């Protein structure tokens, strides 16, 4: 084993003493970064809470204008993508064949893209219904300004989430290429692991966005 380990290629930057130190530093850095992401969405959750508290009935009304089926399917899509991502990390970590890892990564990225496509359809429907604040907003019912706040938060929160997903897909794609090139092995897979952490966080955020936006009122 030791000999095989020595044979594996694992770049050690000049300022680290051991590979282990380098790996730990990378993973810790990622976790601290995820903390900032949490607080970023935390601010949005506060904006949501304050407005929902102020306009509870309006938010129920707004929520009924979202398509529960789209939301639920997308939730499932992201969960499965997270599973594939976790398996990809597992595969890289346990030194499985690089094609296995690559396949799992490909699945992850594909499901992430599926999510975005479904989300795109949803956005398109809102556009058709003139429910996009600031762009083509047209509301004939009561409480127009407050409903607009609901939709504003809906688009902003899901929009920021989608941007994160796009970044995630890009990262997964890079991992995919590097895996195929054989850059990673069980000694050195921190980038895959870190991408995984990021991906899961984006999933966790969605797990909360779904009930907060889609499940405010009985459909």
């Amino acid at each position: 084993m030791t000999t095989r380990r020595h044979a594996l290629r694992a770049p050690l930057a000049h300022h680290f003493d051991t590979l282990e130190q380098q790996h730990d530093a990378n993973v810790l850095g990622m976790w601290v970064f995820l903390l900032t992401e949490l607080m970023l969405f935390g601010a949005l959750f506060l904006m949501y809470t304050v407005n929902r508290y102020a306009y509870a009935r309006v938010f129920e009304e707004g929520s009924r204008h979202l398509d529960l089926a789209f939301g639920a399917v997308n939730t499932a899509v992201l969960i499965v993508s997270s599973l594939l991502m976790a398996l990809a990390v597992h595969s890289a970590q346990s030194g499985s064949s690089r094609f296995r890892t690559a396949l799992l990564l490909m699945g992850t990225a594909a499901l992430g893209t599926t999510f975005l496509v479904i989300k795109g359809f949803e956005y398109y429907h809102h556009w058709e219904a003139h429910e996009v604040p600031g762009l083509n907003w047209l509301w004939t019912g009561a409480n127009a300004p407050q409903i607009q706040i609901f939709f504003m938060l809906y688009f902003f929160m899901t929009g920021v989430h989608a941007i994160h997903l796009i970044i995630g897909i890009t990262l997964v794609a890079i991992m995919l290429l590097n895996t195929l090139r054989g850059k990673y092995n069980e000694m050195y897979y921190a980038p895959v692991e870190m991408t995984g952490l990021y991906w899961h966080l984006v999933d966790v955020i969605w797990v909360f966005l779904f009930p907060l936006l889609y499940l405010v009122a009985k459909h």
Partner: protein
Amino acid sequence: MATLSLPRPHYLNVNFGVRSWLLTTDHKRIAVMYIITVTLMFVLGGAAATLMRLELLTPDPDWVDAMTYNKLFTAHGIIMIFFFLVPVIPAVLGNFLVPLMIGARDLAFPRLNLASWYVYLAGAAFTLWAIVSGGVDTGWTLYTPYSTTSSTTHVISTTLGIFIAGFSSIMTAINFIVTIHRMRAPGLTWMRLPLFIWNIYATSIILVLATPVLAITLILVALERVTHVGIFDPQLGGDPLLYQHLFWFYSHPAVYIMVLPGMGVVSEIITAFSRKRLFGYKVVAFATIAIAIFGFLVWGHHMFVAGMSVHAALMFSILSYAVAIPSAVKVFNWTATLYKGSISFDTPMLYALGFIGLFTIGGLTGLFLAALGTDVQLHDTYFVIAHFHYIMVGGAVSAYFGGLHFWWPKMTGRMYPEMWGRIAAIAIFLGFNVTFFPQFILGFLGMPRRYHVYPPEFQWLNVISTAGGILLAIGYLLPALYLIPSLWIGKPATANPWQATGLEWQTSSPPPPDNFSQTPVVTSGPYNYGGEVEEVG
């Protein structure tokens, strides 16, 4: 290379040329690049302040009109806070010293470190562009709905500039946290860390947790301005207090971002120039962490008269007193460190002693503001202005100047002229007090802030303040005049000119590119200045 006596290679002479600087990943060079940019910002912010002080010489509008004055204090506040004081000590001294003090070869993510400088530049460029191409007039607090609906100035590019600079802060902070956790030299346990490291660590935690909240809030301000849909403008169904909560959730912790690193510097200087172990080291280290945590619980004390619920006002007031206690502990421990010391009055020490006094005054006047009954009178008056300049200029900026002098020999390999250093330190101390002490009285008398014209009975105090401002500007000019020439004509510095402890003094001045010829091993606690130990109390 036939020269016989090659100069010892250090980080400044390993390679030359603009590229070798702009593409460097050496934390020491990045620190030097930060000095240049941050100093530029200080001069710009100071110039705006000087213009403001000149305008306030008389009760009437003399040199600038209302709009220009509003743009001046906005530019002053934004530049000084977001582009000077928040980054200054972490990005300059922290960048240079964190790896040296913990015996590492570099920060954990050197390229991220370089990126943070470019991101900072981009943010600064954005904001400066906004200021030059017309200015912003919202105040540094960017309160809604004024900033989202009423102001006709360049709000969006300013908010984007601050947003970008926020990422620079986050990058630096992540780097410090990881480096301090993962890259300490063998034997360097947490309880052996210098207090500067503790303070930088606490600061980084605040930066990481608070900055994202401000970032996203400013994006929503910009969005509300563009789309006229929003959650901060009451006329659109939004709530301006929501903005204030979010803004102060960042900006109150940010005041500790600005003062904690200064406290770290002062702890290093006081121990070195009194040759004493820091009194109550452990208590001070925990007080540092306590400030970082409690600092997040008090933001509402900026909103006592903003229409917040009374219950919330009570909670935020009592918690503000809770956060004052760790600060008190620090002040007393620094003072006790002097007891039985061997005290010398070199320039860094003068700044540090000044810090203790001015921070105490600034902090104690914070207590007037945290008391609900008196804040009603003092809120948004010059009393507040005086309070925070005492802490930020008298405290944090002095600490930075002290630190710059203290580590100047390490950074440049040259000594600064001691005599001139002392003169400048004293001029700054005097000029500072003359500028800002009268503002306490002005504020209590009722002069509101952000006024370019004011009733004539306030004039005499404003005249004193402006006079002090000029003395202060001259004081700040002096270091520029002697520090720059010292790069060439200064006496070459030895590795440890102050006979201080700390790993940074064990390597040569200036340090080699990899900091240490071999990784140091630590076997004892910090501030080990020898001498017998005697119990007190």
